[in-house]
């Protein structure tokens, strides 16, 4: 596909998305808003997990820190949301850089667990900083006129999350085409070889984690404003991290389109399951994850691309490649 065609299609999709809420019920707008939120989150994880290959299992830490920075700045410093949003992202990017320097020296499972430990630890820190963060009882963002920023309404948050999703996808596109992105892919394939070929691996990895954290923090910040009252249990919920990872892996890690497809697909499926099987939907979701991992270990998009380009179903071949 030519570049022009891609640009035209994506512009048409974005314009269509902006016009979409007028055609939907309030409940449907909320569902699509959640989908857009996860598109941005999945794309953010894709930068560190997909391109760079570092399985960050503590991504939700950036989500929670972004949300809590915004809530604390709005509640205690009377900041406007529109100032708190970028400041939260910048602060979180710095935090990611600081923890990234020691943690990104670890590889494989060790990195995954260390980041998980950071996320769980941050939740406990936020819970125990009661005077500042409200502790386990949560903190409420001021949304009344004269103090804080007025709540944006369903359509307003739809547009905000749409903007964040477009930003996240755009950043992923830019990275995937840049020298920086090729460096990250090289690190993913063989870090020692990448270093030998002249990639400053430490700088590239820390930058990737910081960019990924900044986008995640933007989403967390917007989410905190949308929810009005936030709690540590929700903002640092490990399920949010896992959802991002599942979306990226289902779609195809390290591609731009894959996480997009995975996020849209999985969020609609889990929303459907939630409504159809209110009791057992998590059980079914778990079974879906197991099946997809077993059948499409390289991601749906990669499997589909191989099927089209090589005119055959590569299902059995990927399974053969990964089994014992």
């Amino acid at each position, binding site marked *: 596909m030519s570049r022009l065609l891609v640009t035209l299609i994506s512009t048409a999709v974005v314009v269509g998305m902006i016009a979409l809420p007028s055609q939907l019920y309030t409940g449907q707008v909320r569902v699509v808003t959640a989908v857009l939120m996860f598109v941005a989150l999945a794309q953010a994880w894709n930068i560190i997990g997909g391109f760079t290959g570092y399985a960050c299992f503590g991504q939700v830490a950036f989500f929670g820190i972004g949300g809590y920075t915004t809530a604390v700045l709005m509640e205690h410093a009377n900041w406007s949301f529109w100032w708190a949003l970028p400041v939260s992202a910048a602060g979180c990017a710095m935090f990611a850089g600081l923890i990234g320097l020691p943690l990104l020296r670890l590889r494989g499972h060790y990195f995954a667990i260390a980041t998980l*430990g950071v996320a769980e630890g941050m939740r406990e820190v936020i819970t125990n900083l009661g005077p500042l963060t409200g502790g386990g009882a949560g903190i409420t963002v001021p949304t009344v006129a004269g103090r804080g920023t007025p709540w944006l309404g369903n359509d307003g948050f739809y547009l905000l999350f749409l903007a964040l999703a477009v930003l996240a996808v755009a950043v992923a596109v830019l990275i995937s085409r840049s020298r920086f992105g090729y460096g990250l892919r090289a690190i993913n394939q063989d870090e020692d070889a990448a270093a030998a070929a002249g990639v400053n691996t430490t700088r590239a990895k820390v930058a990737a984690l910081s960019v990924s954290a900044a986008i995640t923090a933007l989403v967390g910040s917007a989410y905190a404003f949308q929810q009005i009252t936030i709690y540590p249990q929700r903002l640092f919920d490990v399920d949010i991290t896992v959802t991002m990872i599942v979306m990226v892996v289902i779609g195809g890690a390290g591609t731009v389109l894959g996480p997009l497809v995975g996020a849209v697909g999985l969020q609609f499926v889990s929303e459907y399951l939630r409504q159809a099987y209110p009791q057992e939907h998590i059980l079914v979701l778990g079974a879906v994850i197991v099946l997809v991992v077993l059948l499409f270990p390289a991601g749906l998009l990669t499997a589909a691309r191989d099927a089209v380009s090589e005119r055959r179903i590569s299902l059995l071949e990927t399974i053969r490649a990964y089994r014992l």
Partner: protein
Amino acid sequence: MSSFWQATIYGLLQGGLLAMIAVGFSLVWGVMNIINLSHGAYVLLGAYTAWELHAAWGLDPLLGAAAGGTAMFVVGYAVQRLLVNRIVNAPIFLTLLLTFGLQLVLVQGMAVLFTADYRSIATSYASESFGIGDVRVPYGRLLAFGVAAAATAALVLFARRSRTGIAILATGMDRTAARLMGINARHVYALTAGIAAALAGAAGAMVGLVGTFSPPDAARFTLLSFVISVLGGLGNMYGALLGGLVLGVVQAWAGQYLPGTWVNAVAFAVLVGVLIVRPAGLAGRAFYEARVEAA
């Protein structure tokens, strides 16, 4: 001073039980380079097995531990053989995701079957205690500690002395070479996972003996297993015992002297700190050191 010793004794006894949960987790990690996120769910499955047997026939939790362990051996073997073996060579987040999906299925399945109510296995002796000076030692916790220590020692002996145990360690060191020597790697992997699950299941019965449990506890047991395995050096079975004791005591002290729920933060601070400073674990060498650097 007596509160300090009470906390220390309590931490040691609790740490022994945590070590029994973690030793299998550490073995699976060391031999197969797999992090089993459904490990905590195995603990609870064992606990519910023992609880059901106790409720139905009044079976003592000690026998319940044997039954739960046997049942979980079968589950662990089957899960490894049928599911996890299929993606052993895939990038690590796939095995993490697969076992996370399994954990969701198992935990939600238990929540549907047994509800999310807190359960415990009530016995006549568990809450009785004897004293050493001012320090009280409950029989139930002492028994759980004894079972945990014996099971860990038996596992080490099995791994170092029996032909099967040596085959497991050999497969962990170099799978290709082990297969060339005629070892059936698929069976050995499944056996390793089965042993880990059996220890977790038996430990679950002990968890029910000394306290309460409920399906959402699964994630906490998995996380504590992480911490202990890292503390001890992965795959290092004595290391896991040491890591469990250290974590138990540190948590007990933190619970005694720190306000609020800082005690949970301490466990993760210890984890991240050890990972950064000594990735091979406090006990020194990991079982298979190359894995530490080369992922």
